[in-house]
């Protein structure tokens, strides 16, 4: 039981106590606010990471993200590979007058292109000026704090782990090679020259790596201009013409290599597969191409074929057709050549039969 009016005095005490304590006000423009490092001030865009997948724009409850893009063809990364189309970001804008800072776009971004930045001073006098475009969003990306450190004992990120593995393996290989070379050198050398060679090899895997690089350069994709021009003239799309011209280039290269190795007939398929493991089928198809072409060149020289007349419907020589299609010849050309091959074969058959009679 308290005395009447005690509550009134208690109330006066509360206000008096607060008056004597320092105010909670922060004099903002004069004193910077003490914000948490990951304050969700504004949404920043790491432009380089954006693949225009549109997930953010679709998930946005306010529909305040505007994205424009176009497609570009990127040459195949590997010899004989297919050219890829890629989305190129033209415009990425966030209307912060609509944004409700739910952060769903940041959560949903699969490529870490959107981040929360602690910047918050982007007030505008006109509401339209709150529509911020890519350059501004990219500037804010530089203010994003680095990601938090991993827990102790956590697995390394996949990319980092792979790179580390590769580097470790290279070092180990180099060490082994060196050790082996030393062992060789320790044995009584047959000739000083051999010892010198072994020592040179022991000096490191560098020469080997260099050779590998050479192979890479050899393999680097070029376009067979002749084929390309031909295909373009035939009305093929640029993309298809490019890829087929590349394949043609690869075939030519392989043929050259084979010729240099002695022109073995059995080896080419394997060699081609080695040179371009991504397109073994093409390589196999290409291997018999040269002898077939030779045969085709030789056969018309026989005069007897023209004498033979063929009746009935002309058919297609399926083997020739498939080969030509695989070579990248247009369907029209392949079809006509295959027909010619069939006619030729039929006539030959008739001649052979006739000869036999």
């Amino acid at each position: 039981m308290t005395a009447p009016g005690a509550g009134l005095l208690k109330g006066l005490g509360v206000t008096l106590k607060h008056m004597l304590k320092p105010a909670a006000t922060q004099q903002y423009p004069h004193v910077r606010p003490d914000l948490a490092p990951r304050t969700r001030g504004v949404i920043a865009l790491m432009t380089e990471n954006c693949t225009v997948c549109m997930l953010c724009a679709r998930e946005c409850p306010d529909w305040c993200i505007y994205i424009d893009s176009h497609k570009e063809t990127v040459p195949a990364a590997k010899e004989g590979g297919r050219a890829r189309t890629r989305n190129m970001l033209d415009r990425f804008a966030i209307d912060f007058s609509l944004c409700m800072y739910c952060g769903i776009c940041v959560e949903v971004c699969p490529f870490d292109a959107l981040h929360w930045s602690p910047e918050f001073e982007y007030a505008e006098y006109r509401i339209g000026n709150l529509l911020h475009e890519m350059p501004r969003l990219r500037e804010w990306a530089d203010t994003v704090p680095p990601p938090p450190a991993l827990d102790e004992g956590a697995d390394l990120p996949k990319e980092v782990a792979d790179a580390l593995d590769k580097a470790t393996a290279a070092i180990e290989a180099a060490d082994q090679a060196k050790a082996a070379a030393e062992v060789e050198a320790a044995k009584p050398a047959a000739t000083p020259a051999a010892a010198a060679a072994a020592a040179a090899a022991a000096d490191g895997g560098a020469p080997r790596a260099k050779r590998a690089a050479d192979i890479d350069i050899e393999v680097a994709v070029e376009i067979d201009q002749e084929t390309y021009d031909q295909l373009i003239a035939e009305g093929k799309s640029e993309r298809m013409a490019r890829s087929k011209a590349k394949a043609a280039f690869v075939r030519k290269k392989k043929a050259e290599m084979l010729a240099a190795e002695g022109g073995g007939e059995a080896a080419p398929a394997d060699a081609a597969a080695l040179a371009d493991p991504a397109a073994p089928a093409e390589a196999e198809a290409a291997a018999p191409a040269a002898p077939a072409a030779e045969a085709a060149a030789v056969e018309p020289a026989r005069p007897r074929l023209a004498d033979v007349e063929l009746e009935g419907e002309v058919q297609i020589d399926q083997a020739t057709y498939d080969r030509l299609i695989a070579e990248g010849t247009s369907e029209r050309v392949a079809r006509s050549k295959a027909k010619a091959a069939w006619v030729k074969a039929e006539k030959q058959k008739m001649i052979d039969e006739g000869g036999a009679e």
Partner: protein
Amino acid sequence: MNSELISLGESLADFDNFGLSVLVKVLAILAVFFVVPLVVGYMEHKAMAHQQSRLGPMEAGPHGTLQLVADGIKFAQKEDIIPTAADKWVFAMAPGVALVPGILVFAVIPFGPGLWAIDLELGLFYALAIGSFSTLGVLMGGWASANKFSLIGGIRAAAQLIAYELPLILAAAAVVVQAGTMNLAGIVGAQATFMIEGTSINVWYVFPQALGFAIFFIAAMAELARPPFDMPIADSELVFGYMTEYSGIKFAMFLLTEYGGMVSMSALISVLYLGGWQIAPGVALPGCAGAGLFDCGALGVVMGLGVMLGKIMFLSFLMVWARVTYPRLREDQLQKMSWLVLIPLSLVNLAIVAVGKVVL
């Protein structure tokens, strides 16, 4: 003019030249009326802010000291809106009717030895009577606005005036009984010579009449319609009560009336209960002859003025403190508090003082 409404004490501004004397007095009163309420208003801003863990105005002038000057300029620039349905003449006159009595009260208030415009024999009567006039302006404004919120606000103000004028006057009557005069300077003098019975210890009237002081203080806050007694404004119920339709300089005049009223009421309380410009009970002002209240030199006059202004600020602070602490009363609670509590208590207070005056 009533034959008893005559001037007694000599004012410092009483010169041989009557015109010059009046001019000086008018200018002095206007200066006090337009400066002291601004200081009180600034104090209110700051005290309220800190009691609410804020800083209050900080940008206009050092620590926001010029905030109210800036506000005044702002009010002067604002559009003066008169509602189409309003009774234009009454609407336009209402702020003046409220403001002028607030200025006139200052004529009799003694701010120090000789620092008064006129020392009326019926000074207290004059102050309370003129002070009540302000409510007429409020009622006029509420009626003329042609707005239901304004009208309810004005009616509430009238009801509040009637309810709280009684305890205010009854409490003041007890002081008059004890002092034996209605002259304000005379009441100050009477307190300087008032001794506790049987001793030679000087006390102010706040000690024998603590009850009267409390009643007068509460009634004064209600008269001024200050929170927690701001039902005529009651912004959560009546938009802004009788001030709803007012804008610009007229609104500023109503505000100035409120703060001027705070100053004049605080001055009256310090004269009636806190010994006026006396520093402490039984302590003479430096440089003053005799009892240390009148017949002072320049230093004594300045000291007296400072003491009086200090007391005014303190009492205004108490009003602000109550404003921040307590929520607004309901209208029926307000009426009950006056008729069922304050008026009976003030009658009891008056009876005790009268009996004591006769017996002792």
